[in-house]
Every structure is written in structure tokens, then in C-alpha cells.
């Protein structure tokens, strides 16, 4: 079966997923889940999607750091060019995404960047994930995460709210993009192994007693986090499908193929799939995918990264289609990388890059591409891809359209 046939079989039939039917009453709270994928380290967008025949591009990098227009591993031509009259292609390892571009479920906005000249990972990540506009990057750590403004109002009914998980991050730490929102869940590793607490039922009653005591100090963030954690784990535990009393491993529908090379990324995407299928009212999911800081030996590294990344974007998309769920997935990185390669077979920190988007409904959620060109005088500070779109504004627009309208 090829990809196109697979889409047809999966996409337009609503199969009752692992979550079962009992949760239908909550589906109204999350008509659409927004999944934000952060490629940490500064993904080299010019090695993921490029005008392959641009002479400036060809002159700036050796073939192994380019998307190629010929040879053994040519790039895959996009149905629509992002640069006028140029042969725009994506990296061959991103093959799982190609027919989604053809069916317009995938879109790409190139030359997206921060309205800020920073080339620092940590400053750029902070600007991208926080609610600041980008022009001002001082004193950021106390500002809310960028997604906070797009959260639907909290369900007032306490009973109902105990049955929802509105935000999740697939990282062990709190998620910067969600800062300011209470009741965020963090799940790291395989979901079914992330729900237990020490001491079984008795341990749970003791923890509930220890973390329920309002007389100690109600503003203590540890207490709040403890209460929410126990509540959310209890909810998830009750919803996980069981075989002989044990929580079963996740089984995606037939034909949906997750890439299993990178455990963190596999579990992250499958956790999101399971939570959406459970109908717990999931509005936002934040996924981290690291390893893109390719100053050295980029060629092999990025090939692996793109294969794992695109494989599971595609699998998650197919999974949600098969479940009849709506999902918008957007991919960004803190910056793109230098046009010119360094002598270590890598690229250094740059400026603008590409933003990628998948939408199960195939809505057009991105503005038209405006390509700035790659001649030296067209580059940002003479060396990096210029931004034609402020990535923060674009992200805001996507969140607005998918979460609030």
C-alpha cells in the first residue's frame, strides 16, 4: 500500500480508538489540539528545505550540507516553490512528509525568524517560548509562556476539571511555552510507565494526605503541583486500556508506522496520540526534539534527525486521522543556521529558518512565502537568511485560528 492509498483508508473513516466511547462528552472541549514541536539547538532549515539550484546556495556549502537537485540522494521537489522560479526541495529523509505537501495537509513557511538580532540559543529560545514580542529580550524569565494567552478559560466545575488534562509537555521539566497555565502535565518516557506512584494504594492515600493539607502553606508551589499530579495521574490511570489488569503498551492502528530509532521522540509523539484519543480535553501539547546544534559533522547527524522527525510527524498525523481527531501541528526552532558552512563540516548559528505545519483538516493556516534571496547583500548582517515573517506573529496567528476561533 502506498502513502496515498493509506491516507484514503485511514483518513476519512472514524475508528473508535483506544480511548473508547465513554469519553465522548468531553470532546467538545477540544475540537482541535495544537501540537507545538520545538527543534532545540537551531535546526539548519537550509539543509531541510532549500532552493537547490540557487548558485549562491551551491557556492556557500559543500554538497553534503545541501539539499541536492541531482545525484544519488536528490531532494524531493515541493509541489509549490517558496522561492519564485527556483527548484525548491526538501531533504530526502523527509520523504514521509512529501505527499502531505501534495495533499496540502502540510505547509511550510520559509524565512521565518525572530524580530531580534540574537544568535544565542538561550536568548532565542526564551524569546520564542515566552510571551514577549521579540524586540525586547531583557528580563524574560518571569513572563508567561507564549501559549498562555490562547488557553480557553478554565472549566469552572471542579468535577469536570478533574476529568480534563488541557496541557501536556513531553519533557521531564516544566514547559516554558506553557508557563502561567496551571495544571500542566509533564510526561517523559513511555506513557504507561509514567503513571505510578511509590507505595501503591497506601502510598497514594498518604501522598494525598500530605499534599492536601491547606494549613501548612497554601501558596507553596510544591503542594499545588503535588495535588494536581495526583489528580492527573489518577485520571490517566483510569483511562488507560488494560489487558489482564495491566496497562497495555500503545498499539497504533494498522498502517500507522512510528519511527522507533529515538525513544524520547517516539514516546513523545505516542503520548500525544494517546492523550488525544482519550478525550481528556487536550488543547495544547509541547514536544521537544533536541540535537540540532550541528556545528560539526552535520551531514550524517541531520540525516538521522530529519528521518526520525519526519517519520513521527507523519505517524502522528496518520494516527489522528485514523482516530477521526483534529490536530494542528507546528514545528519551529530558535533560529536557522549560517548559509556558509564552517571548516568542521557543520554550520554555525544563523537567523531565519523554516516553520512547518501539519493540519488534519488541510486548512490553509500560513501566509504566502516571501523569499529574501541568498546573495550576500540579501542576507541578514551579510551572512544569514533574512526573516520576512516574524515567527512569533505567525505562531500567534496559528494559535488564534486553531484554539480560539
Amino acid at each position, binding site marked *: 500500500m502506498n502513502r496515498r492509498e493509506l491516507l484514503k483508508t485511514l483518513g476519512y473513516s472514524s475508528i473508535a480508538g483506544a480511548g473508547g466511547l465513554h469519553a465522548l462528552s468531553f470532546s467538545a472541549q477540544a475540537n482541535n489540539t495544537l501540537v507545538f514541536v520545538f527543534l532545540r539547538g537551531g535546526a539548519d532549515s537550509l539543509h531541510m528545505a532549500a532552493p537547490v539550484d540557487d548558485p549562491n546556495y551551491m557556492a556557500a556549502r559543500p554538497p553534503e550540507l545541501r539539499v541536492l537537485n541531482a545525484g544519488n540522494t536528490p531532494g524531493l521537489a515541493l509541489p509549490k516553490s517558496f522561492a519564485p522560479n527556483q527548484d525548491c526541495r526538501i531533504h530526502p529523509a523527509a520523504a514521509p512528509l512529501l505527499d502531505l505537501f501534495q495533499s496540502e495537509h502540510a505547509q511550510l513557511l520559509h524565512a521565518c525568524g525572530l524580530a531580534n538580532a540574537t544568535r544565542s540559543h538561550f536568548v532565542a529560545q526564551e524569546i520564542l517560548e515566552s510571551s514577549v514580542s521579540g524586540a525586547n529580550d531583557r528580563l524574560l524569565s518571569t513572563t508567561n509562556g507564549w501559549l498562555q494567552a490562547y488557553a480557553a478559560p478554565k472549566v469552572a466545575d471542579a468535577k469536570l476539571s478533574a476529568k480534563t488534562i488541557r496541557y501536556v509537555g513531553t519533557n521531564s521539566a516544566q514547559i516554558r511555552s506553557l508557563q502561567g497555565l496551571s495544571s500542566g502535565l509533564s510526561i517523559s518516557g513511555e506513557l504507561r510507565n509514567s503513571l505510578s506512584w511509590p507505595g501503591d494504594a497506601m502510598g497514594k492515600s498518604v501522598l494525598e494526605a*500530605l499534599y492536601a493539607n491547606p494549613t501548612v502553606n497554601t501558596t507553596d508551589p510544591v503542594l499545588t503541583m*503535588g495535588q494536581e499530579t495526583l489528580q492527573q495521574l489518577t485520571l490517566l490511570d483510569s483511562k488507560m486500556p488494560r489487558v489482564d489488569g495491566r496497562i497495555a503498551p500503545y498499539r497504533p492502528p494498522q498502517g500507522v508506522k512510528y519511527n522507533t530509532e529515538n525513544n524520547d521522540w517516539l514516546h513523545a509523539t505516542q503520548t500525544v496520540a494517546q492523550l488525544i484519543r482519550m478525550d481528556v480535553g487536550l488543547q495544547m501539547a509541547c514536544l521537544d526534539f533536541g540535537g540540532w546544534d550541528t556545528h560539526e559533522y552535520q551531514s550524517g547527524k541531520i540525516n538521522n534527525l530529519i528521518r526520525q522527525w519526519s517519520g513521527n510527524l507523519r505517524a502522528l498525523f496518520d494516527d489522528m486521522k485514523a482516530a477521526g481527531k483534529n490536530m494542528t501541528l507546528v514545528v519551529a526552532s530558535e533560529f536557522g543556521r549560517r548559509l556558509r558552512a564552517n571548516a568542521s563540516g557543520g554550520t554555525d548559528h544563523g537567523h531565519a529558518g523554516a516553520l512547518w505545519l501539519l493540519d488534519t483538516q488541510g486548512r490553509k493556516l500560513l501566509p504566502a512565502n516571501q523569499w529574501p534571496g541568498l546573495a550576500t547583500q540579501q542576507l541578514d548582517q551579510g551572512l544569514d537568511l533574512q526573516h520576512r515573517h516574524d515567527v512569533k506573529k505567525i505562531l500567534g496567528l496559528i494559535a488564534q485560528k486553531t484554539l480560539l476561533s
Partner: protein
Amino acid sequence: MSQALLDRLTFGASPLDLEAFNALGLDDWLEDQFNPSAQDSKFDHALSSCVMKISYEGTADYAAVNENRPLSLLNKSTAELWHLTEGQTKMAYEERMRPLRELTAVRLLHAAHSKWQLKEMMVDFWLDHFNVHAADAQVAVAMPSFENECIRRHGLGNFQQLLASVAQSTPMLIYLNNRSSRTGAPNENYARELFELHTLGKAHYLNDLYSKWRQVPGAEKGEPKGYIDQDVYEAARAFTGWALEDGRNMGSGLNLPKTGKFSYLESWHDPYQKRILAQDFDPFAPPLADGQRVLAMLSQHNGTAQHLSEKLCRRFVSDTPTPSLVQSAAKVWQDNVKHPQQIARVMRHILTSSEFKQALTDPAQRKLKRPLELAMSFVRKLDLPFMPTMGLVNELSNAGHRLYFWPTPDGHPDSNGYWLSSHTLRRRWTLPMGLIENWWATGFVGPDQLTAGFKQPFDESQLLKHHAQRLLGQAHATSTLSTINQALKTPDKRLLGAGNDEWLGMRRSLSYLGMSPAFQYR
């Protein structure tokens, strides 16, 4: 008060620590801690009996191994261990990683048993400040020497010496790629993080404000208050040729030796004139001089004093240290910029300040224990038997504390927010139970360990009260214990004998004390 203070400066204060501290007073205790001697009997004793398990499956090239192995690689040089990185030699990944595993064991042993607790806290601080990710075998085999020669040697000493030793260290040269940086198109990775993370800090990165070096305030006088990308580009040129003897093919049939040692490659160095932080660098400087000058300028820059003082205050005082304390610490930093005990002097200033004293009683300035601190304070306060194992190290990692495996060069974030998520809290709850029930083979806790100083018959509630005091102090012991007892519906009085099974409930109750909100804070 001294309990709270000591809990900030150690991996958990036991009653014995407290006694020693009270006998000396803060000033003398600090003086003692800032001048650690080689004498460390409890640690030495633990080290001499320490073994660490190694286990892997066999293949066609080597046999399976599953054994407890004593520590034997810690004093070996990188050159002596470099053969473990040889790709052509078939060996298990665990053998290649063994130097790092041993180092990890010793770090935990130090935290649990060393008399020189403040030094260990500083080791923890600097390993994050100069973070390297040691998953690569070439980094892993060089970590013992990195930790001993750079971090432990200079951790309370002079920052410029510390920085200079790190700049030529094998792990950093690999991790931030400087070993492959050469003239023409240098690799900027090290230079950028040197400015942003190791020295001036992102508060002094002014690229969003200025695009030309002359625009940076102070530049015309040769004292720019911060840096921009042009400084990074030029500094990357200054470090070209700072490389490693990693067997690399240099062309013309020449290969570098295979020792992992620092090496300066003249032919890779960009010798021409440079301008860094508004200072002119003449062309054709002697070997290493360009890079050394950059390190000196950065170490002595006021921005570095600010950045490092802020980080030290954040680490030991509060997530949001008062600007007055940061300023006064930065002044001590600068006044002692050439002093061999510069860092200790800054630490003394911070730890004897009124701001620090105030933070100890302010709930808003509490610091969450990092998972290593959580585990070690449980061990230390209850005086549990302890041997390090990878099982425990993996649990710490699950709780967010990835010793030697933090992937990015910034090190673990130093804010309560990072350590507190639903995932990490769940894993923190596991730590006390796993330790006291010996889930990770860190040591069996039997009646003997739990009844020191008590006489038979053992009254469970008396014992629990005693241990709760040690774990949580006066303020929280009674209320936490009664919450636990209510939830467990514990009978009022229970006498325990010598049978091990009778102690299961006791161990559980102790682990619940370790899971309580109050125990999460330093």
C-alpha cells in the same frame, strides 16, 4: 537557624554535622571548608570498599560480563584511557564508559560521606557552569581528569585559572567542537558559549542593540560593557588551532598521535590581526597567545564578575537574589580577581551576608533540593548505609538531574521551576522509598541502622518521632508525622523486635516523611 543554613551549604545536615558546626561557628566552619585537607576518613573508608557493577551482553567479539568491579581508573590520565575510545577495538560501550561510571560513583560517595561538603557543592556548581555532555566515549574517558584537574583543583580558587584549564581540557574541546576549528571558516561553538555561558553571560550580549563594535557603550575607551556577534566571530579566530591529539589525519600522510591530549596546531591557527572587545590583537602572536589573551580579558571583565556573582547567589541564596548582594559580591570578585582564593572569598562574602541570613527564613526564597541533594540528604540525615549504583543514578536522571548527561552547554537550570513538574515530583517521591527499601542496591537498611542510640524494646512511634526530627526539623516533624499516621491509621503504640519483617512499616513511614512537601526544600 544553623540547621537551615547548613542545609544550604551541604548535601543535608545530620545531627553530627550540626554539632560540629555549632562548635566552630560560621566563620571558622567556613575557613575550615574553604581549606579542605586530604584528610577525609569517612569518605576514604567508603571509597576503599566501593565496587560498582558492570554488566553487558556478550557478542562474537567479547564475552558477557556481569560483576561487581572495584574502582581502578580514577587516577589514570586521559592518555592512559584513550585506548578505550579506539573504534577498531571491539568492546562493550560500558567498558568505554567505565571511567565515567567510576567518576559518577565517587561523586556520589563524596556527596554522601565527604567532610568537605561545601567543596562538593561547588563541584556541583562548576560542573553545571562548565557543562559537558559525556555520552561520547572520548568525552567520558577524559572526565576524571577534567573533574580533578579543572573543577576540583580550582573550584574554590581563582576563576581565570579555572577558565584557562577548562579551555584546554579534552572534554570541552570535543563537546564545543573547538578541536576541529581551523582558519578560514572557524567553528564558533566554543567562542560563543565562552562569552555567553562561561564568562560575560547573556545579560552582556548586546547584539539586539548594536551591530558594530564601536556602538557598544565604552568601546571607544577600550572597555565595552558587553559583546556582540562580531566579538564572537573574532574570538573564534583566536582559538583556531586549539586542538587535540585525537589521531586526526592532517594530510600528507601525517596523523596526530592518539593520546587525547591538548595540542596547538600552528597550521590551523588564523594568525592575522583581530579586534575583540574593542582591543586590537596584532598579527602573528606567539603560539596560544591570542586565545590566552581572550581568556584573560573575559576573566577580568566586570560583566563576568556580575554574571558569576549572580549565579553563585542564585545557587546558594535565592532564585531571585537581591541586586545589592550581587553587586557587593561582584565587587569582592573584582577586588580579588588575581587572588588564588578568589572564589572562596566571594563565597565567604555571600555566605556571611545579611541577605543570605534573611533568605534562610523567607519562605519565598526557599530553594528546592536538586534530586542529588534530595537523595543524599535523606541518606545523611538518617545516617543510612550508602553505596553508589547506576540504578540510583538513573533515578536521579528521571527526576531531572542528569549527572554528566545534561545535553546542552548551559547546565541544569538553577530555578525551582525547573525541578518542579508533575513528572519530576513523581520521581522525587520514588527516591526516599527506593533508598530505604534498597531498590537500587545502595544498601540494606535493617533494624541496626534505625535504632542507633535506642534500647529494646523499640517503640515505633518514639523512633519515628526521632527520625522525623532529623529529616524535617522542629517546624515540620510533628505535623507531617501525624498526617502520615492518620492516613495510615497507625495504632498508637507498637513495639518492634529484631525480626526484619516488623520493620517494613517503619521504613515505609520514613520514606513518606521523605516524600513530604517540607522535605523537598533545602
